[in-house]
């Protein structure tokens, strides 16, 4: 049986097809979201990659902020549950999941069965999320993928506020004007995101194994800063951004 999970996030659309609730047969990330072709593109991509057709999919579940906008799903489920399921599938020992996405950050406590037992999310502000990194990369004229490379070169990470993206933006501009080196600024930016996520993690309680999911997990600069903040090793993988969609496809299998 093939099940499809679609994660319609704030900046990207993701799709994953799973066979029999175990084997990942196709996945896709498209940088486009609600109100665009992003969702249909992601679905066509996974169907093309797997060689399947729409009729081969037994159950489809949607998740993410746009989950209620996708009309062809058999059901919808929160991204909280999906990230828990997705991470548990890849890392069965995971007890804490830190997910930093495009405009929100969340920390999930998982029980022994890999189910979400509690969670905390960021407040209304997007500081400490992927959007924060996008804004900072833009000021520094860097591609988002270059942030981890630059952060690794830092000798004296700069202090950057994590209170507000707009404040932090003007802080970065001031530091640029004062001659602070780009790697030190980038490391400070990564630390800023990490310390905000660490505060959430401490609120929910950090239990190992700690895993990171969401698009920001791909940034080793943030991941390493978070490891330092929490004093734990953090597991992640290339599929970090797809954990929500993977969880939705696993949930779809459970509901089939």
């Amino acid at each position, binding site marked *: 049986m093939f099940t499809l999970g679609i994660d319609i996030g704030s900046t990207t659309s993701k799709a994953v097809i799973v066979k029999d609730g175990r084997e990942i047969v196709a996945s896709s990330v498209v940088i486009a979201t609600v109100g665009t072709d992003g969702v249909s593109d992601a679905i066509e991509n996974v169907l093309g990659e797997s060689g399947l057709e729409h009729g081969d999919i037994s159950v489809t579940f949607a998740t993410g902020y746009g989950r*209620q906008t996708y009309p062809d799903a058999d059901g919808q489920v*929160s991204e909280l549950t999906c990230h828990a399921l997705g991470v548990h599938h890849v890392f069965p020992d995971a007890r804490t999941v830190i997910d930093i996405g495009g405009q929100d950050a969340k920390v999930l406590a998982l029980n022994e069965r890999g*189910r*979400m037992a*509690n969670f905390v*999310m960021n407040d*209304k502000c997007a500081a400490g999320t992927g959007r924060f990194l996008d804004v900072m990369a833009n000021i520094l004229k860097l591609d988002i993928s270059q942030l981890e490379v630059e952060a690794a070169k830092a000798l004296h990470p700069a202090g950057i506020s994590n209170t507000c993206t707009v404040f932090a933006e003007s802080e970065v501009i001031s530091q640029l004007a004062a001659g602070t080196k780009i790697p030190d600024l980038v490391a400070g930016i990564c630390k800023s995101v990490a310390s905000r996520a660490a505060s959430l993690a401490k*609120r929910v309680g950090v239990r190992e194994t700690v895993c990171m999911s969401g698009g920001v997990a791909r940034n080793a600069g943030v991941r390493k800063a978070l490891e330092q903040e929490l004093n734990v090793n953090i597991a992640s993988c290339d599929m970090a951004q797809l954990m929500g969609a993977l969880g939705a496809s696993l949930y779809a299998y459970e509901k089939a």
Partner: protein
Amino acid sequence: MSEEVKKQRPAPDPNSAKFKLGQIAAKAYSDCVEAKARGEKVGWCASNFPVEIPETLGLHVCYPENQAAAIAARGGGERLCSESEGEGYSNDICAYARISLAYMKLKDAPEQNMPQPDFVLCCNNICNCMIKWYENIAKELDIPMIMIDIPFNPDYEVSEAQTAYIRAQFWDAIHQLEQITGKKWSEERFQEVKKISGRSSRAWLEATACAKHNPSPFNGFDLLNHMAVMVTARAKKEAADAMETLLKEYKENHEKGVSTFRAEEKYRIMFEGIACWPWLRVTSSGLKDRGINMVTTIYADAFGFIYDDFDGMCRAYSRVPNAMCLELARDKRVKLCKDDHVEGLLVHTNRSCKLWSGFMPEMSRQIGKACGIPVASFDGDQADPRNFSAAQYDTRVQGLMEIMEENKGGN
């Protein structure tokens, strides 16, 4: 195009508690308007000021917090908040204060009008922002302000020293009001008022405690509407009668197995914090559509005051939610959760109320642990609609529901 057919609402039953309570809430305003028209001095009064004092003296007062909630619930919150911000008030201060200060200047809000004050009655047992808010009103309108200071109580009990401090201020407030208004305190009348307030409070608390039944005989959001009478009129005989009617209805609902919660009650939660008045429908339906009944909230119970004598009254006003220590506040909530078989806690991180929202992360952690229930929080505001995101609320509520479902055994 087909013609839209509007659903006709059934005429309200004039003997129902809902009808009676609505009438009392409206009459509290109209009585004040009439008193003002007669030339009597009327006041603006803080919600946790001892209402027994103006009631015993025969004074008519209006409640700015109640008015601000009504304005916000009827869509005027942003307009009045912006008006105050234009006057220089920061958008970080309480939205009730911003609405009230704007109303003081504009003297008109179609959502809920009330007469301008001749004096203000302030009590800081609920918050300290209120002191500056009322001081500004008193200064701008050049009217007297009567201030009762009930400090935050770090202990579990109210000491004799604290009681004496509050008692002296209550008497000082009474004497000031006698001078300002020419009305006289009557011990006999106070005994009547105390008795009526006690009747209202006992019926109200017994009514809210009906949530112990499964399913609950009421939708917890009903309490948010009904409590307006407990805030503004609990010392009036009509209020006591209406609260006893409400209790009778809830008992009957339980006996018949019916509820004012218009959905299958799949999950039961406690709601923490002041209601998100500008988004009441969104926050309510986000729960109801998932079969989640908010069966209890400390916010509603906070307006039930039970005491035996004047000193007891002093102690009662020192034991309101924002004036008590975390341990007592936690234990009261844990009792509600356990009595009412609560399965989850939803916390409103209310941008207007830094005090209440500030202690909630730790308190909710302790409640969650003591009761073994999941906790979710969302950002919002009691009166400024700009501080709420429906999508964020929806995700958090759905996450909470999914954990409650899992705790029941899943699927």
